[in-house]
């Protein structure tokens, strides 16, 4: 097996036994990147020189006996994470040449443990999208079928892992942006409970929904990365002061007695046939492991997409106001005055989808509409959250599909934004409720595209879904399948 195909835990074992060096592993990743990038376009920036320097430093640490699970491991970050001294664009023209003066806390935690940054990953611009098609740096391709989307907005992260261009990646999830691309690219993606991981240094899209999470080959790696990035951050007022458990202790291939809820609103007639097949097989697998299934209802599911597209866009319209050309980022070169400068800089710098959402959000907050839209959406959100909390009184986890269909073709939905929005229907409610959920490989469609299943846990109940996911993974081995590039 090639070095770039190893998981974190496999590579760590080799590093620890000095069978391989971090420099060797990093070089292997960089070579893989050079080889497949022309086809995949997962990276916006590759940091080859810095990566090799960091790998050398990691090897010195390892030689001195200082080795942690992440020391010397090549990782890549969605270009939404601020990396000090390394260009961070958020896939936008408006930040095309932006070099941040500080590191995101979550990246800093990985860096301090000796992780190696190999590059910054493509995404939908400002995390607004479900297909990675709205990047100013071109679309990323799905490694399983280059004519299909990898998913979004963390499309680069998922494609990178799917194509084995790095050992692990970080993404962000606001409405499904880790889980959906993970599902489409055959890897594991986790959205932790809101507040579990610091948002400091992550370019904000929707502040009350954004969360940082791992995109990895398998559930073990997911637990490792989550353990490394989770925890209270005094720089993030919304991060929670709650001790971080050892998530690896949940890696027990046991699902006996686990009560899993099946929400009737998610298993609608007309579900894509391949998705239904995969879900049925998953239910059978879990049953075989001794899990019990309970039909539950999440009655306000139908309102989730509408509520999300009001709340997220409202917060985004405000979060993106700072991109005004005054202090950093793109500033229009020909402007007749102040207002002209604001308008031209933003018109030139933002892509179409970003503009669309800023306008929607501004409208939802505007005088005369605030009560009917933004406020109402927040009230609906509370009801959706209560749906989940009530369900968790009787079940330990909830099983659903991740996406209504496998990955669609590039260009298929770009002319109909609403159609695109509706594809988030299974992932959005989790963000509104603020709880945790994981996407785990659960099948391959008839046309060779991966299909993931979603396991939703109660707030701060990551250990339960890690255990359930691990049990499923070990019993089915879907995570061992790989794209042929």
């Amino acid at each position, binding site marked *: 097996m090639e070095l770039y195909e190893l998981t974190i835990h496999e590579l760590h074992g080799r590093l620890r036994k000095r069978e391989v060096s971090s420099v060797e592993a990093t070089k292997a990743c960089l070579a893989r990147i050079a080889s497949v990038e022309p086809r995949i376009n997962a990276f916006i920036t590759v940091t080859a020189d810095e990566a090799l320097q960091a790998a050398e430093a990691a090897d010195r640490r390892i030689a001195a006996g200082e080795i942690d699970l992440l020391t010397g491991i090549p990782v890549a970050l969605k270009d939404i994470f601020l990396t000090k001294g390394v260009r961070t664009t958020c896939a936008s023209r408006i930040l095309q040449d932006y070099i941040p003066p500080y590191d995101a806390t979550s990246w800093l935690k990985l860096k301090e443990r000796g992780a190696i940054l190999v590059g910054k990953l493509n995404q939908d611009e400002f995390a607004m999208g479900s297909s990675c098609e709205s990047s100013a740096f071109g679309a990323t391709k799905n490694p399983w079928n280059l004519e299909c989307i990898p998913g979004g907005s963390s499309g680069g992260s998922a494609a990178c892992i799917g194509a084995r261009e790095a050992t692990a990646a970080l993404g962000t999830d606001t409405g499904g942006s880790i889980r959906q691309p993970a599902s489409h690219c055959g890897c594991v993606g986790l959205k932790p409970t809101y507040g579990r991981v610091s948002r400091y240094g992550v370019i904000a899209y929707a*502040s009350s929904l954004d969360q940082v999470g791992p995109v990895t080959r398998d559930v073990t790696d997911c637990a490792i990365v989550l353990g490394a990035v989770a925890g209270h951050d005094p720089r993030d007022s919304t991060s929670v002061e709650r001790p971080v458990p050892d998530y690896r202790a949940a890696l027990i291939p046991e699902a006996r007695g686990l009560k899993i809820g099946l929400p009737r609103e998610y298993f609608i007639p007309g579900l894509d046939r391949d998705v239904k097949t995969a879900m049925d097989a998953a239910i059978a697998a879990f049953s075989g492991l001794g899990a019990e299934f309970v039909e539950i209802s999440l009655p306000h599911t139908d309102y989730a997409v509408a509520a999300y597209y009001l709340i997220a866009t409202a917060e985004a319209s405000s979060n993106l106001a700072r991109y005004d050309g005054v202090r950093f980022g793109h500033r229009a070169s020909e402007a007749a005055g102040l207002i002209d400068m604001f308008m031209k800089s933003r018109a030139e710098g933002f892509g179409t989808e970003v503009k669309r959402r800023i306008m929607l959000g501004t409208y939802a*907050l505007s005088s005369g509409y605030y009560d009917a839209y933004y406020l109402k959406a927040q009230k609906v959100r509370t009801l959706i959250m209560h749906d989940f909390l009530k369900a968790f009184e009787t079940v330990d986890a909830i099983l659903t599909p991740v996406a209504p269909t496998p990955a669609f073709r590039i260009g298929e939905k770009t002319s109909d934004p609403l159609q695109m929005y509706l594809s988030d229907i299974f992932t959005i409610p989790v963000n509104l409720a603020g709880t945790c959920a994981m996407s785990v490989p659960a099948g391959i469609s008839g046309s060779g595209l991966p299909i993931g299943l979603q396991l939703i846990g109660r707030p701060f109940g990551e250990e339960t879904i890690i255990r359930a996911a691990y049990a499923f993974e070990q019993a089915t081995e879907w995570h061992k399948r790989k794209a042929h590039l």
Partner: protein
Amino acid sequence: MKYQPVIGLEVHVQLLTNTKIFCGCSTRFGAPPNSQTCPVCLGLPGALPVLNKKVVEYAIRAGLATNCGIAPRSVFARKNYFYPDLPKGYQISQYELPICQNGHLDIEGEWGTKRIGITRIHMEEDAGKLVHADVPGLGNGSGVDLNRACTPLLEVVSEPDLRSADEAVAYLKKLHQIVVYLGICDGNMEEGSFRCDANVSVMPVGSDRFGTRAEIKNVNSFRFVKQAIEYEIERQIDLNEEGGKVIQETRLFDPASGMTRSMRGKEEAHDYRYFPDPDLVPLIISNDWVEDVRLSLPELPDLKMRRYQEELGLPPYDAEVLTASRELAEYFESCIAVYPQVKPVANWVMGEVTRALNDTGLAITVCPVPPLRLADLLALIDKGVISGKIAKTVFDEMWKSGKEPMAIVEEQGLVQVSDTGEIEAIIDGIMAANQGQVAEFRGGKEKVFGFFVGQVMRASRGKANPAVVNELLMKKLKG
């Protein structure tokens, strides 16, 4: 038709915390541009606000001092608009749920005592500063200095209860005194620590419907506030009488002309699209915390003034002067704590001490004569060691040299002469040398007495005890 002005005031109080409201940058005034900034107050991508607890404590102090209710739960909200001095494109403020509500202040004047309602007090961050000239490298452009961005402010909003420019000034002065007394603001209006916006309208006397109001922004002295409001009232009355209509708009005061003028085109009606800031959690304030702050409050000026009159027996004028600043009051109180002769201490503090401070441009906090030393000096007068007049000389020397009063008296040989024998001898000498004036006095010219007193005092180099001199001189002159 007779019109009545209606005025409401919004005051922005810059808080005296060491660091900004949402980040750890210094709030010190006067640093080089953009030298006190960080990703948070620069509004860089990915930065997040973290609330400064001291700011909340100061807000609670202000609320308690103005009789407001302190909200057990208050929320920060974003006020969205674009301007170069507003780095995030929104200001973090408070909207629907401010920290303080429903307070009041009492103002005294020719109207007697009047209660002015305070609608609310809320916390917010300040914007940066725009610089339009005199900055190297700017050329024709404007520069943005973000040192001030994110400085903590309290916005104090009054009810429209004020009915004249004088009432408005009285309210402002009262509020100013209170925030300085509380130690939450330095009150420096030139540096922008205390900024006032006035909402002015007029309505026919007897009407119950307020007229359209105009807002006069950023007037930075009490004198200008009075001028601006008076001008605006007249302008609006004239407009009404000519059949015109007052437009709701923002106006600026021009001190040179004494007029207000419209900021037409600069401030269109803004829809700020307020919504609760999702980067901050709701602020929960416990009763215990409020009580702790209440216990830590200094005695406020109104109470102090009343106590000086009722318990110490000082006249209203003295009470007002001595309580004008907390530091002066504390000086006075330290002195009477060891020398409980209230009126003499009051006279000396209002007199010699204040004169010397003004002459040397010093603040009472760095007064070279500490209150205990002043007490020593007054004790010497009391004991008859020196006269009141000599004491002033001693005081000046204490101020310059920092020495103790008794040491100065001894060094300069200023001990008062009260020995009757000694004084009689001097009087005899003076009378012998001025027999003409003795005759005049005995002839009925009583005014000549002053001449003899002067002569005796001069001969004794001011040291003769004046009471003894008067008594003996009167006896000897009358024969």
